[in-house]
């Protein structure tokens, strides 16, 4: 442990801690910075985090200094204030200040730090600025504006250290220095939009989000990416019932600060044209009151077969087992939604909750086996989520049956095949828990309102419960019931911020 004094206060940190982190602890906020990033190497190029260390002849950058016992550090002295102001002014010399058309405005390092540490009058006329290329498309997801860049090299380090693809580099010297892709290369790795997130200015912006919304209008909810079994922690940015983008939320145990480009686009499914937005009876839209009456007709003898899915939350899977205690249970199609994984974040399993399915004890079946189960069912069939009828064998088995109830989000094959289709909520429209490939239970919050007459799935399932079972009063009560049912030793309603392991093999 090293004891040091920062701004007059004593603080003790572990040996080997960077002075930057120690200052963040002591001050309660980070030092001004552009190039420092907790998940990248230290570059020390922006020179903004300079602090005064007694005994050192000059100011020193905190990010590249390790703490030493007995250090006396000043981060708010006049000398430091002046230095950071001057460095900031230097960063802004050739900046075009085109904030009105810049997507970064509102979450921009230059804007925020100018307001916090700058507030000087510019000494550079607009006509004296060095002009560089603007709005260059450098990859399928990223657009580059060279003028706005402050050469912090975060994107270069990301491509070298995290994806190890090395597309980006800094070219030329002095005020001609600019960021760019290597000759003949595109920024086309599977994680390219992370460079947009870590770019502290508007040099790299997302093509998908381009001009869609000013960022200060967005509200955020903490979510978990439903794109694959990794369960990257995300921030769901939304406004007026629409999700505009997903941004990674740091969780050192799961995804670090990153997420893949494919996962970022999963929000488009929430607003797809084929969303199931009202109950439908034999293809005709009906009200919920009618749907309930029809339900009593269809499921008069209770459900004989219940098919869940790895796309549903842990609470819903637990509740599903209570709907029909004596039924045959299936977890849906085995091997459905598989893609290509890699050793960084993406899992080949493109469902968010296959581990949850296993926890809840719903075995998956291949198409032929599921078709056999469907044909053997001597009573109504309940399908919750997923799209088992996408497999021709299952679709053929379901065809002609008049006792199939589907609770789901999209009007796809299974919804078409069902006698009664009830609209549920997607991950953005409900709260719940997914168990990722590590067996880590992670909670996600509701971001936007449900479209049309769609309802939370657990409330829909509660309607289907037999008269003998008591419907859960709230999601909290349901979580407690599911915890007890699955014998989990963790409080599902108060999961820690980085999730909790449910046990079993990782």
């Amino acid at each position, binding site marked *: 442990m090293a004891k040091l004094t920062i701004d007059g206060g004593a603080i003790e940190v572990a040996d080997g801690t960077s002075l930057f982190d120690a200052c963040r602890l002591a001050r309660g906020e980070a030092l001004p910075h552009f190039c420092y990033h907790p998940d990248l190497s230290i570059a020390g190029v922006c020179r903004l985090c300079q602090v005064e260390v007694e005994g050192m002849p000059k100011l020193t950058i905190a990010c590249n200094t390790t703490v030493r016992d007995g250090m006396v550090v000043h981060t708010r002295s006049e000398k430091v204030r002046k230095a950071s102001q001057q460095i900031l002014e230097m960063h802004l010399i050739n900046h075009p200040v085109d*904030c*009105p*058309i810049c997507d970064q*405005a509102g979450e921009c390092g230059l804007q925020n730090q100018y307001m916090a540490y700058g507030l000087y009058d510019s000494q550079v006329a607009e006509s004296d600025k060095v002009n560089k290329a*603007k*709005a260059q498309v450098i990859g399928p997801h990223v657009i580059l504006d060279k003028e706005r860049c402050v050469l912090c090299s975060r994107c270069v380090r990301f491509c070298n250290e995290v994806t190890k693809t090395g597309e980006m580099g800094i070219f030329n010297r002095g005020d001609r220095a600019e960021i760019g892709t290597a000759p003949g290369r595109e920024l086309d790795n599977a994680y390219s939009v992370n460079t947009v997130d870590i770019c502290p200015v508007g040099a790299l912006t997302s093509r998908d989000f*381009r*001009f*869609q919304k*000013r960022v*200060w*209008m967005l509200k955020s909810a903490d979510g978990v990416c439903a794109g694959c079994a990794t369960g990257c922690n995300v921030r769901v940015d939304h406004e007026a019932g629409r999700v505009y983008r997903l941004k990674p939320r740091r969780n050192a145990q799961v995804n670090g600060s990153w997420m893949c480009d494919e996962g970022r686009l999963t929000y488009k499914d929430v607003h797809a044209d084929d969303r199931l937005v009202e109950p439908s009876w034999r293809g005709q839209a009906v009200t919920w009151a009618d749907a309930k009456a029809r339900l009593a007709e269809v499921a008069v003898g209770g459900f004989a077969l219940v098919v869940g899915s790895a796309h549903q939350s842990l609470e819903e899977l637990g509740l599903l087992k209570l709907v029909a205690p004596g039924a045959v249970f299936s977890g849906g199609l085995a091997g459905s939604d598989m893609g290509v994984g890699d050793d960084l974040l993406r899992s080949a399993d493109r469902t968010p909750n296959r581990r949850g399915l296993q926890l809840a004890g719903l075995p998956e079946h291949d198409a032929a086996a599921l078709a056999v189960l469907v044909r053997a069912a001597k009573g109504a069939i309940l399908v919750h989520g997923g799209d088992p009828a996408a497999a021709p064998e299952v679709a053929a088995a379901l065809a002609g049956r008049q006792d199939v109830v589907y609770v789901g989000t999209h009007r796809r094959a299974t919804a078409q095949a069902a006698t009664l289709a009830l609209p549920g909520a997607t991950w953005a429209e409900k709260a719940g828990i997914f168990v990722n490939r590590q067996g880590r239970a992670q909670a996600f919050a509701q971001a936007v309102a449900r479209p049309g007459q769609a309802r939370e799935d657990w409330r829909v399932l509660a309607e289907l419960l037999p008269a003998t079972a008591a419907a859960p009063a709230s999601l909290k009560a349901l979580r407690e019931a599911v915890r007890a049912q699955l014998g989990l030793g963790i409080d599902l309603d108060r999961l820690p911020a980085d999730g909790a392991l449910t046990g079993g093999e990782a």
Partner: protein
Amino acid sequence: MSFEGLPKGSTDGRRSPLESIYLWEVVKGLAVTGRHLVHNIFHTGEMPTMQYPEEKRVYGERFRGRHRLMQREDGTPRCVACQMCSTYCPADCIHITAAEHPDPAIEKYPATFDIDLLRCVYCGLCEEACPCDAIRLDTGIYEIAADSREKFVVDKEFLLNERTRGTR
């Protein structure tokens, strides 16, 4: 109760016999009306009433009338869809959707720019917020009428058009 301090002529709610039959008071009132009538007949120029719409009041230079959108030299809107105005607007009456401009030097332009004139409070904060001097409330137009709510939502073309936007 004390009525000390009440202005002269105030009563404490009780009327004199003459007042309580009202007739004399009505005659007094009519006399005032008649005096003004006769005065106005002979001094029409002093009357505050205006013969609107033939005659119109002249407002000051800084009067905030209906909005207009300014144009570049080539007739396209100056607006770059930064949405400062709609952010600042206390009445939430400006709705803009941005789009990519074919000219990379401009980059961003408003694909739609709608103002709901029924919501607008004519405070002028939008022109104050605008970094491009693209929106102004200097048309002097205060006659805003339509026969449906939808028609009060004016679009980009209307606000840009020289003929409909008015000039000053």
